[in-house]
């Protein structure tokens, strides 16, 4: 299988404090991975670092993304190369409509690939299709980005963006947190719809609950800034039954 992302021995600090300590991980194209772990294990750090947030200082190791040195790319270059981060806490941008940001984002990617701007009619058709898939009202599109959205609406909006932008690698950071069971199902449905041999998905999550609806190919346990155990979907169930201490002690 083609490699999508290969992380080798990654060490990183935030404000001189180590958050990743020799993390290695290989994600093949088309695979769905779940990264689980206790609070403070470095799960969110990993996804933010991969997306290019400036707060992280990489002290050792390498990250290869589709044959390129990911760490050498700017935030927007990574995005335009097909890396998508679903935010744990999606950001509000008052006055900028959802649909405007979506279009700007899609066109930025198209421009990078040498494609012309998306046709207005095609774009709206595409967006409306995914909006209904995410069980969102179309009025959503014209509201300010995440402005006054409930927690559940924000998370659904992240998945909507992912569906429209069609990334090659989607990192979904705690996409399940703060969701009631109905919203969780909708989000899971959206992610399952996005599964494709051309797309890798990384679910970063604290709870096994999400994995009842999105069954991953691989499950990893992240603790103290590195992967301490990997397995298949059954590992998540084992964690649910025995707790993280079981992994950390063994």
């Amino acid at each position: 299988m083609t490699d999508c992302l290969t992380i080798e021995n990654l060490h990183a600090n935030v404000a001189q404090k180590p958050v990743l300590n020799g993390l290695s991980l290989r994600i093949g194209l088309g695979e769905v991975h779940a990264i689980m772990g206790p609070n403070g294990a470095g799960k969110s750090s990993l996804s933010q670092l991969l997306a290019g947030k400036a707060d992280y200082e990489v002290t050792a190791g390498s990250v290869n993304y589709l044959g390129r040195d990911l760490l050498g790319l700017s935030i927007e270059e990574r995005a335009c190369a097909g890396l998508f981060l679903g935010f744990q806490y999606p950001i509000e941008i008052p006055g900028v409509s959802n649909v405007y940001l979506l279009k700007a984002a899609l066109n930025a990617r198209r421009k990078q690939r040498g494609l012309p701007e998306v046709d207005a009619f095609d774009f709206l058709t595409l967006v409306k299709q995914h909006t209904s898939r995410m069980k969102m009202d179309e009025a959503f599109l014209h509201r300010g980005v995440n402005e006054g959205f409930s927690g559940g609406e924000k998370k659904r909006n992240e998945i909507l963006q992912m569906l429209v932008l069609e990334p090659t690698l989607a990192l979904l950071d705690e996409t399940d947190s703060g969701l009631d069971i109905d919203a969780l199902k909708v989000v899971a449905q959206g992610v399952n719809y996005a599964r494709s041999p051309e797309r890798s998905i990384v679910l970063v999550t604290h709870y096994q609950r999400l994995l009842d609806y999105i069954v991953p190919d691989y499950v990893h346990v992240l603790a103290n800034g590195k992967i301490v155990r990997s397995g298949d979907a059954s590992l998540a169930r084992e964690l649910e039954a025995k707790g993280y201490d079981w992994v950390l002690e063994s």
Partner: protein
Amino acid sequence: MSDQTLDSVIAKRYEHGFITDIESDTLPPGLDEHVIRTISQKKGEPQFLLDFRLKAFAKWKTMTEPHWAALDYAPIDYQAISYYSAPKVKTDGPKSLDDVDPKLLATYEKLGVPLHERARLAGVAVDAVFDSVSVATTFKDRLSKAGVVFCPFSEAVKTHPELLERYLGSVVPIGDNFFAALNSAVFTDGSFVYIPKGVRCPMELSTYFRINAANTGQFERTLIIADEGANVSYLEGCTAPMRDENQLHAAVVELIAERDASIKYSTVQNWYPGDENGVGGIYNFVTKRGECRGERSKISWTQVETGSAITWKYPSCVLKGDDSVGEFYSVAVANHHQQADTGTKMIHLGQRTKSTIVSKGIAAGKASQSYRGLVTIAKSAHGARNFTQCDSLLMGEHAAAHTYPVVDVKNTSATVEHEASTSKIGEDQLFYCQQRGLSAEDATNLIVNGFCKNVFNELPMEFAVEAQNLLAVTLEGSVG
């Protein structure tokens, strides 16, 4: 996004910084009674106007420059300024565009304000004021068919002296403040608009101000009268060359709305702001005030202030007529060393008068941006309402925003609401947009435009686009 990155997106060059090499008739620097008499004589003014000037000058000499605003600048030497500069013309003055110096026309062309025939397609009537005099007014015929008077102030002196005598100084009295008194003494030109009873002005009116000559001040005077039931939308744009010395601009704008009349006044102010080290730039001390004299009249100010080294400006409404409405929508941007102290006054006198204030301040670089507002509800203003929303956006670590709202209510039936917020352009917001594929600059523009959206919505379409572009230029280099 790191601070360093933030610092590197605010710094495109000022686009309108060129100088037009043109022969001009300029008075030597200095101000005394003789200068005022000379200006009045050059303009061929009637006695009442000369008296108006001399009275204002006498008043001005007793006044001192105000320093209550949050502005910091070296003292202005009023004797070092030339109070009159006009492009030299071979005859008495241009009768039509054909008589205008081609260099001048080229200047406006360069500024994107074409005065030629083809400009007529745009459907906006333009009065162009170059240094101290109006050089061309377009669409005169079509306007006069509708009964609309739109001409240079100096022409109105000759054609409509009775209107001037009646209205000039009736909203901003000569002794209103230091800069208004100075303007009243030495003003040179500007625009005059009169919309007769029941007339809806058939097109947007626009004045384009340009300071060109060195060491001159620009003191224009604008007077807009909307008679009963009349309706007009007026736009003003301003630019100046890049010069190392500061130049003074002290204008006075008076608006009068009679019963059921409505005036919409929009400004895109882009005077030269000085360089990134704070050298040069226009000192913009402007008094703008409108009076809603009649019942159900309405005055709406919309301003986008991106230029000038210093901005001191508080477009205000005096709501005299019952059920009259005053509005103020403002975007003020200050970058590098720019200082802006701007806001509004809403004076409620009539019953059920209503005012809305929406102020958006943006400060980047080392700039300082202040909102100063006064809402007065007089005892007579039964059932008056005011809504104020005042938001500040900071970019980078060194910018400052201040808000000084004053509310003075003397009638207990009034409703006054005030909302305020200050936010930093979030590194999280930038990161979010960049993660979606936008460059730091595009992300900044997106966020800033979103912040200003409900003010831009008030601008006429063409101006809204220009305003967005200006904002992008002003803030270029402030994030990155």
